[in-house]
């Protein structure tokens, strides 16, 4: 009886824990099954801050709009700020030795950050009259009335701003007088004049001299050259500038002397003998020298005092040149990096003495990092008072490295900050046959670990032992093994980054297992390549177990939709490029994974090109025959957001070649352009598993879900309301949502939300769609749910018929049979604005679902699907309560414990990927943005396994104690029996 009570208690506990909506974790569980990695992205600008005292750091701004302060010794992030996606950092500098100044949003926002801790000190908004490039000059030793002004040119105006508090000092608008486009701001040391150098209508060269105290114009000189200019004006010395003319074949040397402007033309072909295509002047500012790059080489040209151009040196065009660095004695140095085979050569030269290398170092470099893209140098004084140099280099794969004394001091894989697409791969199956020594060792370790845990549970452990327990838990070798595990938690996450590099991360601790710079996606001088999609190509199950799984990377070489595509197939275990199918002759605008596989378990893919032709991959006769057989039932659709048209296609019988097929247009849905504009389309995840078609509701009633993979959710808004929130009045903004069958083009459901507008984020799963939008009338964000049910199956309620199998529930469904559908929907207020929505996915689809919402705070919130159930009512009946239906509330609750990212932020969150584990209760979650975060969630608790910290030692001990107790009592009872018999 006692046992029964205990069991029922346990059962009750389980039930009550099931009802609790949150699944928070304890402090000591952080890091057990989750990991978080912080990145910054590809570095654009770097400023060193290496004072003698204090920490040496480098301040960087990146293409992901991150400003960060990095430790120069180890490459760790001291602090970091991720600006919004539209707040692009233009310039970065240091003012007063304690503030980091950033200019962003096309020069309209100037901010100062405290250097040690990264707190914002002040922020100024600069208004301009027109668009122009943004320039920032922070004079190092200029004092104007106890203030050090910062000069910013943006929006056609020159602003002087106090570096102490960000106050406006003065503003000079250039746009009033002329349409000059200022290219450079120059502050000659010691003088009180700012020189602004620019071009008017690309045919007139202007210099302005402006008083730093009040912004008054002191002098204006101009000189016209009818040829026009190409690119930027580069200052060579205080009064000399160079620029290319519009034809890019002539270098103009501009000399400003006492108000007179003198122009001097030199043909590029005179400087470079031979081909001089695509000439550009490199923006590296070296005093007295400029560098020209052509298709074949880079030349350094010295401008002599007489105004002559002398070619000093010719180097390979892959050489990367740094800016000049002022050394203490007034001389300047700059660095050159030359790319070699699996090594790079770094040489530092002094500007006044170009003939010899001041320093030359050869550094071994992993060729998977590609070419050097950028270099920033910094110097330090060695103990013998000579100059040492450290170089920060940015590689093709966006990684950041610090070189010093011929060695790589640290590296950062910052390519992972720009993940485009994610897929997963299973790890290899564990080989049978483990050595005895290993087993013994691991058994001993296992026992030791569990004895420690037992001590911990019984509160006998010392603080040291507690720390040891935590260490064991965190560094469990089990979770980091390179083999498949029973629960399916260990997997490889394969990430495609913007740099065209493929990374494989282990889910155990997030380490990079391999990384490959895809040759087919490398940007060359002729074309710019980028990855588009990553798909599973071969997933060996039964037939081809000896093969390694592989992934397909689809990319595009060029900027337009019609550019040829690049395809490559990569081994998921080793990262080797197995097949390089690119550049293919056709373009790719869509990648469709067909639900068919060939005998070697290769997944069939259709690539749709810009001319609406379908190309079949793999290009094998077997795949072609499979596709021919199934082609009657293969359809595809395209969403043309600009035109507001959805089109559906089928395969034409006649085909142009064996592996490419013509499309026939089957249907089109044209949204009226004056009232509707497509802003979001969402489909179901192709690999989603649905357990059942029936939904059991209160009173044992049943509803049949309309489960179709060929359903697309489309959201449109009125064109006026397609801007940001607040740009339209509630009366003129209408949000319309559609559920459309993509085989027949039938609109299954249409709903209008008056006074609402986007941005719309939605997720479609099973038979429901949840979407998030803004309600202008309520001034709040809302989330709505639509559930769609199949009415044609609703009569299947006769138990007898179901028992004998007389029902139409298992017959294959065709979209052409036009099943009747009904929908239920409901809306709720939701506090947060949303960056991404996803839904948990499990192996069999039995476990209940959680919505994973990427909030504006870059966190991932798990929301039980039961909260967005359209059957919720204000007063649920007893039966509905038993079913688990929650009473209706107007807002969705945000339970702080249900943030799956707990204390972390996934800065710049862009996507949330869910991957089913083998264990039905568990779903793996991977969130990516600038940061990466991985964890496991169990929406219905881990009902199918013991928790990881289950105390096996305690269980063993209990069993042993029980067995001993059994023996003792048996002996005692025997003895008593014997005594009884003798009585």
């Amino acid at each position: 009886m006692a046992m029964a009570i205990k069991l029922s208690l346990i059962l009750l506990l389980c039930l009550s824990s099931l009802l609790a909506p949150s699944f928070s974790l304890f402090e000591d569980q952080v890091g057990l099954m989750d990991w978080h990695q912080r990145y910054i992205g590809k570095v654009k600008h770097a400023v060193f801050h290496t004072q003698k005292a204090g920490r040496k750091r480098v301040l960087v701004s990146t293409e992901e709009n991150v400003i960060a302060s990095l430790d120069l010794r180890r490459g760790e992030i001291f602090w970091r700020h991720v600006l919004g996606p539209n707040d692009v950092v233009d310039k970065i500098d240091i003012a007063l030795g304690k503030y980091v100044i950033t200019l962003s949003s096309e020069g309209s926002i100037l901010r100062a950050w405290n250097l040690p801790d990264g707190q914002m000190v002040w922020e100024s908004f600069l208004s301009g009259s027109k668009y122009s490039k943004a320039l920032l000059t922070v004079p190092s030793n200029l004092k104007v009335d106890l203030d050090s002004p910062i000069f910013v040119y943006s929006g056609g105006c020159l602003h002087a701003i106090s570096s102490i508090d960000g106050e406006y000092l003065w503003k000079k608008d250039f746009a009033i007088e002329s349409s000059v486009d200022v290219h450079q701001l120059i502050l000659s040391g010691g003088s009180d004049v700012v020189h602004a150098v620019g071009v008017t209508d690309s045919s007139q060269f202007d210099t302005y001299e402006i008083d730093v105290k009040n912004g008054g114009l002191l002098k204006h000189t101009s000189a016209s050259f009818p040829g026009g200019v190409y690119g930027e004006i580069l200052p060579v010395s205080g009064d000399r500038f160079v620029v290319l003319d519009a034809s890019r074949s002539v270098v103009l040397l501009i000399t400003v002397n006492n108000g007179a402007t003198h122009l001097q033309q030199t043909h590029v072909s005179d400087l470079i003998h031979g081909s001089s295509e695509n000439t550009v002047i490199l923006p590296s500012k070296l005093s007295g020298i400029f560098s020209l790059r052509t298709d074949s080489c880079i030349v350094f040209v010295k401008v002599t005092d007489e105004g002559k151009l002398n070619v000093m040196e010719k180097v390979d065009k892959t050489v990367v040149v740094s800016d000049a660095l002022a050394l203490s004695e007034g001389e300047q140095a700059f660095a050159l990096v030359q790319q070699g085979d699996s090594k790079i050569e770094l040489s530092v030269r002094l500007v006044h003495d170009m003939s010899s290398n001041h320093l030359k170092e050869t550094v071994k470099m992993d060729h998977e990092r590609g070419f050097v893209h950028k270099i920033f140098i910094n110097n330090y004084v060695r103990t013998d008072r000579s100059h040492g140099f450290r170089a920060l280099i940015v590689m093709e794969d966006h990684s950041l490295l610090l070189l010093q004394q011929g060695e790589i001091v640290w590296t950062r894989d910052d390519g992972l900050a720009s993940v485009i697409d994610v897929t997963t791969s299973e790890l290899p199956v564990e080989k049978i046959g483990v050595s005895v020594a290993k087993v013994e060792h691991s058994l001993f370790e296992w026992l030791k670990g569990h004895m420690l845990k037992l001590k911990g549970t019984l509160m006998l452990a010392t603080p040291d032992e507690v720390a040891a327990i935590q260490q064991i838990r965190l560094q469990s070798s089990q979770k980091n093994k390179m083999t498949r595990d029973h629960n399916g938690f260990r997997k490889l996450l394969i990430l495609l980054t913007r740099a065209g590099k493929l990374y494989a991360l282990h889910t155990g601790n997030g380490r990079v297992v391999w990384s490959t710079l895809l040759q087919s996606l490398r940007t060359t001088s002729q074309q710019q390549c980028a990855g588009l999609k990553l798909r599973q190509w071969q997933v060996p199950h039964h037939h081809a177990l000896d093969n390694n799984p592989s992934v397909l990377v689809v990319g595009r070489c060029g900027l337009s939709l019609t550019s040829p595509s690049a395809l490559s197939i990569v081994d998921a275990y080793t990262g080797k490029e197995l097949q390089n199918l690119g550049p293919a002759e056709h373009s790719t605008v869509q990648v469709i994974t067909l639900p068919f596989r060939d005998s070697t378990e290769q997944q069939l893919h259709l690539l749709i090109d810009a001319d609406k032709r379908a190309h079949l991959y793999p290009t094998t006769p077997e795949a072609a025959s499979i596709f021919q057989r199934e082609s009657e039932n293969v359809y595809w659709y395209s969403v043309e957001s600009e035109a507001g048209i959805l089109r559906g296609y089928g395969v034409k019988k006649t085909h142009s070649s064996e592996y490419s097929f013509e499309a026939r247009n089957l249907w089109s849905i044209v949204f009226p352009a004056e009232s509707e504009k497509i802003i979001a389309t969402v489909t179901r995840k192709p690999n989603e598993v649905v357990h059942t078609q029936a939904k059991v509701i209160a009173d044992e009633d049943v509803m049949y879900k309309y489960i179709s993979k060929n359903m697309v959710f489309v959201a449109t808004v009125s064109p006026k309301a397609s801007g940001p929130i607040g740009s339209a009045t509630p009366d003129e903004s209408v949000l319309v949502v559609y559920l459309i069958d993509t085989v027949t083009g039938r609109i299954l459901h249409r709903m209008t939300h008056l006074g609402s507008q986007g941005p719309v984020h939605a997720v479609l799963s099973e038979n429901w769609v949840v979407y998030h939008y803004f309600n202008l009338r309520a001034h709040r964000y809302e989330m709505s749910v639509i559930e769609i049910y199949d009415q044609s199956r609703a009569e299947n309620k006769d138990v007898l018929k179901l028992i004998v199998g007389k029902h139409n529930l298992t017959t294959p469904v065709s979209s052409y049979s036009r099943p009747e559908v009904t929908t239920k929907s409901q809306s709720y207020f939701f506090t947060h604005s949303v960056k991404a929505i996803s839904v948990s996915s499990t192996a069999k689809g039995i476990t209940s679902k959680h919505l994973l919402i990427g909030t504006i705070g870059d966190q991932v919130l798990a929301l039980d699907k039961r909260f967005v159930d359209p059957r919720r009512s204000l007063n649920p009946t007893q039966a509905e309560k038993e079913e688990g239906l929650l009473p209706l509330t107007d807002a969705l609750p945000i339970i702080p414990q249900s943030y799956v990212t707990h204390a972390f932020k996934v800065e710049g969150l862009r996507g949330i990927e869910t991957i089913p584990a083998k264990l039905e209760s568990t779903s793996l979650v991977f969130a990516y943005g600038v940061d990466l975060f991985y964890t496991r969630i169990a929406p219905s608790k881990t009902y199918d396994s013991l928790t990881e910290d289950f105390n096996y030692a305690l269980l063993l001990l209990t069993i042993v104690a029980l067995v001993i107790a059994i023996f003792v009592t048996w002996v005692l009872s025997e003895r008593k029996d014997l005594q009884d018999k003798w009585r």
Partner: protein
Amino acid sequence: MMCVSVSANEMEKGKGVLGSRKWAVEFTDNSSTRDILDPPGFTRASPDQDDSSLTRQKKDAEANWKSQKAWEVAQAPFKNLMMMGFMMWMAGNTVHLFSIGITFSALWQPLSALQGVGKVFEPYKDNKVDLLAPKLLYIALNLGGMLLGVWKLNSLGLLPTHASDWVSSLSPAHEVEFSGGGAALY
């Protein structure tokens, strides 16, 4: 001539029913032949008559007693039924260990009782006693108990009487068509 017959069967069966009677000596000997003369002064006729009437009376009493007992045994499940009903009411209609245990015992007890109907009524077997009616009552009551159990099972929702019980794990139907695509990739 005397014959002492101690029926082992009776010893076992009669333990409960017949109380303290463990064995019996029968002085009446009907089967004996008249080879040996009666002792002098013994007249067989009168006592013989007395004896036979006595045994008849006794047998009638026993038969009455047996049939009475058989009825009692037949009615015994009724108490059980009441008890079961009370416990079921106590257990409530939610599925947990108690209610399931009680329901299954309510199903199992009548079943095992029905299996052993013959054995239960064996002690009261007599050609003079009609056991059919008590047996029928016994069976009916047990069936009633079982029905109570089934009713309880149903009220717990454990009987597949609804459509939902037959389709709740029916996998989605296969879709004939496949369609993919979406917006152009940038």
